């Protein structure tokens, strides 16, 4: 009686207990609701990919075609020959990669300092850093723009990289992780004559690989996806990132949608790949920071 109830309710915690008593060929009606729901969220993206392979004659009519009549590469050809998308792609890659690497290095150093090294004011300083998380970007963007200009970085990739070299979130995340690691090995290494930096690089960082992967993925996503700051900081086409290039291009070329969608695919594909590769850690880090806050 009780096991049957558990099976029906689908709440039994243990898969192995419930599975054998489950009838084999039962249709699971939940797919009827779940499949269309899932489709609703991916359909716009599928449509984007389809349209990028269409000819503009197919798109620019009413009603528009729903399936390409063959694979047209006009959109991609246009994007690669008549626009600066390749250059914007390289700019985005450069800005994102430098941000990721520098975040990994600087956040690791600071997080280790706050987690393991004792110095006067450590607690207060860390508290101050964490408190800056709540300062909204709109408050800092105007002076930051003026600052970049005074530093001679206006309208350069440097202006995009400098504010993203390090993040409070990264310091916080790694410090939490370092604090949870056992101290024994580190202490043994110090007795053996290892310096602090050696301990960090040889012992702590290899253990912290999951946290580093999370930080790398999140830094990449935020840096790659940002539009506001590049829009403010950059004025020359040559220094556009993909997000800025895509919005500008789309704003000027309403009639060549195949090219706009091709550009959109190029812009979106890298984050989709990173997300699909790191989905598990990505979701875990979001929920743990949100729920434990």
């Amino acid at each position, binding site marked *: 009686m009780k096991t049957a*109830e558990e099976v029906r*309710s*689908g*709440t039994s915690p243990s*898969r192995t207990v*419930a599975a054998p008593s489950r009838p084999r060929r039962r249709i699971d009606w939940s*797919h009827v*609701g*779940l499949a269309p*729901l*899932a489709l609703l*969220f*991916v359909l*716009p*993206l599928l449509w984007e990919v389809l349209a990028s392979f269409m000819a503009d004659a197919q798109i*620019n*009519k*009413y009603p*528009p075609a729903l399936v390409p009549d063959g694979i047209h590469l006009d959109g991609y050809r246009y994007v690669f020959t008549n626009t600066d998308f390749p250059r914007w792609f390289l700019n985005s890659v450069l800005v994102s990669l430098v941000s990721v690497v520098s975040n990994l290095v600087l*956040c690791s150093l600071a997080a280790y*300092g*706050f987690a393991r090294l004792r110095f*006067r004011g450590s607690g207060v*300083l860390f508290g*101050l*850093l964490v408190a*800056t998380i*709540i*300062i*909204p*970007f*709109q*408050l800092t963007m*105007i*002076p930051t*723009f003026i600052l970049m200009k005074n530093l001679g970085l206006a309208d350069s990739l440097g202006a995009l990289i*400098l504010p993203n*070299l390090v*993040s409070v979130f990264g*310091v916080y995340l790694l410090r939490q992780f370092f604090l949870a690691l056992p101290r024994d090995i580190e*202490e043994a290494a110090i007795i053996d004559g290892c310096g602090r930096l050696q301990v960090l690089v040889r012992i702590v960082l290899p253990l912290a690989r999951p946290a580093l992967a999370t930080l790398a993925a999140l830094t990449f996503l935020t840096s790659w*996806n940002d*539009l506001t700051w590049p829009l*403010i900081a950059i004025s020359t086409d040559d220094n556009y990132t993909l*997000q800025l290039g895509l*919005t500008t291009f*789309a*704003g000027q070329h309403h009639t060549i*949608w195949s090219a706009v*969608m091709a550009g*959109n695919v190029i*812009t979106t594909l890298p*984050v*989709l790949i990173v*997300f699909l590769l790191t989905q598990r850690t990505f*979701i875990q880090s*979001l929920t743990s920071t*949100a*729920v434990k*806050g």
Partner: protein
Amino acid sequence: MARPMKRALGETPAAWAFVLPATLLILGLSLLPMVWSLLLSFTDSDLVTSGRWVGMDNYERLLDDPAFRQSIRNTLIFTALYVPGSAGLGLLIAMALNRPRTKLIGIYRTCVIVPFVVSPAATGVLFAFICDARFGVANRILSAFGIPRQGFLEDPNTALYTLTGIGLWGGTGFCVIIFLAALQDIPPSLVEAARIDGAGRWNIFRHVTLPSVRPVTTFVVIWQSLVAMQLFDLVYATTRGGPLGSTAVVVYFIYNQAFKVFDAGYGAAAAYVLAVVLLALGGVRYLLTRARRRFA
């Protein structure tokens, strides 16, 4: 238990070498600009020169600037629709996805979350295409249901609501992630006990599920409110505030003042008004989590 670590003072120089680069960058690019911005808001700076001191003039101007008032109205409408919409849909979808033994459930979950990682810029450009008033596929779908053609983003009466819909497509995934984690933390024995006591689906939802996700719901609502009030990228990528200012939100107003008409002091004042609201919301969240920790 004697730790072999060197004591406090011996490590101070090394410690500073570890934390200094990050500390300087973070404080220099947050606290410094924050104070700078406040000073700026009392001047008539044009972004190039530092301008004259004008006292509270900028803030007084904001009070009777119809464009600022409209941007607040637009932001509030968007927030009032987006926050309950994304949180409500997020909870419902998370409940539907919370059946770990269903086949393909991982794929469904990925599908729902994927739009969240697509940039607002790319999302905006994609939906400007889908909702194109003349050739867009959205109108084709509507016509299949006998609904007349819509202007969507090109009609001042519908642009803000279309934008909300696009925002929900991209932003609901985040709520799903958070609610799903909270739902999976509910002990199955709790649901089971309620069922044995004769509770139906609705009663289990009301008396077991809802109370269990309440703390997380507070977080989601506040977080999504912060996101909604900072809306910008999506607007820039679709309507640039138009048509007729119907989608000009507060951050768009700030951007426009500071970087388009070069009224930087005025833009900074508007940014401070927005920031006070955002910081107050952040403060509410902080107090709530502290209260929860104390009483839990």
